[in-house]
């Protein structure tokens, strides 16, 4: 076996079958290579890969607390600089540890200019504790704390544009990706690790348990998210937001309904009665976003 083909995230971790985070992390760490230190925030990834006394990691790994993956990684980077050692530092957070709880530590890391790559595995709710809403939950989605009913359509607020917030820090590299387009994703990880300064990658990782779809459809759904325009893979280099580049352009954008229909968390928009107004509003939001990014 060639050296680069050694799996750096060992099998035997306890993530659900068909987990998007498992695939995303595996692709990411294999692209980063052996010479990497990982700092992870609390979340699905941490509780499933590092259950004492077992670890799935084949690279040095540390878990601090929920909010401080970026701070821990900053400290590691500063220590490496002092010791004169060259090593990739990767911070991995979930959407809770990036969008909500870890946002100020992340912003601080960007501002101080540490050479750390932060990867956000976004599964659009607090899946680890049982599907509670967070600021990454998209409009109209069901979660246990944004239930649907007579007076509610589910989550009533749109998703926070975290990658744009990161890009507003004018850091050397910001990108978004999905595991379905793995070559694009792995290229972005390598690029992020090669820049001199902080980098941020936002990855959409479908969650079979929380989004309520059969596990075999995980890759298909993350591809559909790009094809419908719900999630656009793009990159910004050197903080030049005006030179934003879409890396995977959907040839002909599909209707957003195709993306919503396959997921159980949007079932209430179709059954018992069709909520055309909500579907139209989601389509309108996606259209407006695509227009802003220059995608037909």
């Amino acid at each position, binding site marked *: 076996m060639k050296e680069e*083909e050694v*799996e750096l*995230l*060992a*099998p*035997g*971790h*306890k*993530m*659900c*079958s*068909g*987990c*998007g985070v*498992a*695939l995303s992390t*595996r*692709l990411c760490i294999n692209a980063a290579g052996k010479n990497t230190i990982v700092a992870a925030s609390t979340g699905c990834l941490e509780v499933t*890969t*590092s*259950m*004492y*006394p*077992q*670890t*799935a*990691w*084949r*690279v040095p790994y540390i878990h601090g607390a929920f909010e401080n993956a970026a701070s821990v990684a900053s400290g590691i980077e500063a220590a490496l600089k002092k010791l004169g050692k060259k090593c990739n530092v990767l911070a991995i957070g979930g959407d809770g540890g990036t969008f909500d709880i870890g946002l100020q530590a992340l912003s601080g890391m960007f501002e101080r200019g540490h050479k750390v790559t932060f990867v956000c595995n976004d599964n659009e709710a607090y899946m680890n504790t049982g599907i509670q809403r967070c600021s990454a939950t998209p409009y109209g989605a069901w979660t246990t704390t944004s239930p649907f009913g007579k007076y509610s359509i589910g989550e009533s607020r749109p998703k926070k544009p975290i990658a744009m917030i990161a890009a507003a820090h004018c850091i050397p590299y910001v990108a978004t990706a999905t*595991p379905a387009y*793995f070559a694009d994703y792995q290229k972005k990880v390598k690029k992020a690790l090669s820049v001199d300064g902080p980098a941020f990658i936002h990855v959409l990782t479908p969650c*079979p348990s929380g989004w309520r779809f*059969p*596990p*075999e*459809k*995980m*890759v*298909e759904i993350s591809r559909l998210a790009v094809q419908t325009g719900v999630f656009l893979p793009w990159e910004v280099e050197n903080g030049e937001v005006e030179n934003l580049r879409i890396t995977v352009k959907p040839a002909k954008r599909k209707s957003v309904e195709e993306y919503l229909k396959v997921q159980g968390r949007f079932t209430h928009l179709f059954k018992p009665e069709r909520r055309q107004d909500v579907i139209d509003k989601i389509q309108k939001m996606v259209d407006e976003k695509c227009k802003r990014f220059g995608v037909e």
Partner: protein
Amino acid sequence: MKNPFSHEVKIVGKITVGARITQPGNSMEYKTGSWRSYKPIIDKEKCKKCGICVTYCPDASIKRTEDIPVIDYDYCKGCGICAIECPSHAIIMKPEV
């Protein structure tokens, strides 16, 4: 006095100090194959050896070989992503018995 930051792993009772784990990748002791209810089987004749199943496996349980890929049934959780994503439809999911 002993350096508290020394890299030796002290063991107090059954737990290491700082809950450090010194064997990388020892989650392989835990076999997740028992979670599976459907078993993926590769059709040797249809397989084009493209390696897409190897890339998309979330559990890293499909290994690339010189010949067709080999599935490690000790860790395969039976999610079925390989069967759906295979461009030549060479993987079928059979119910476990």
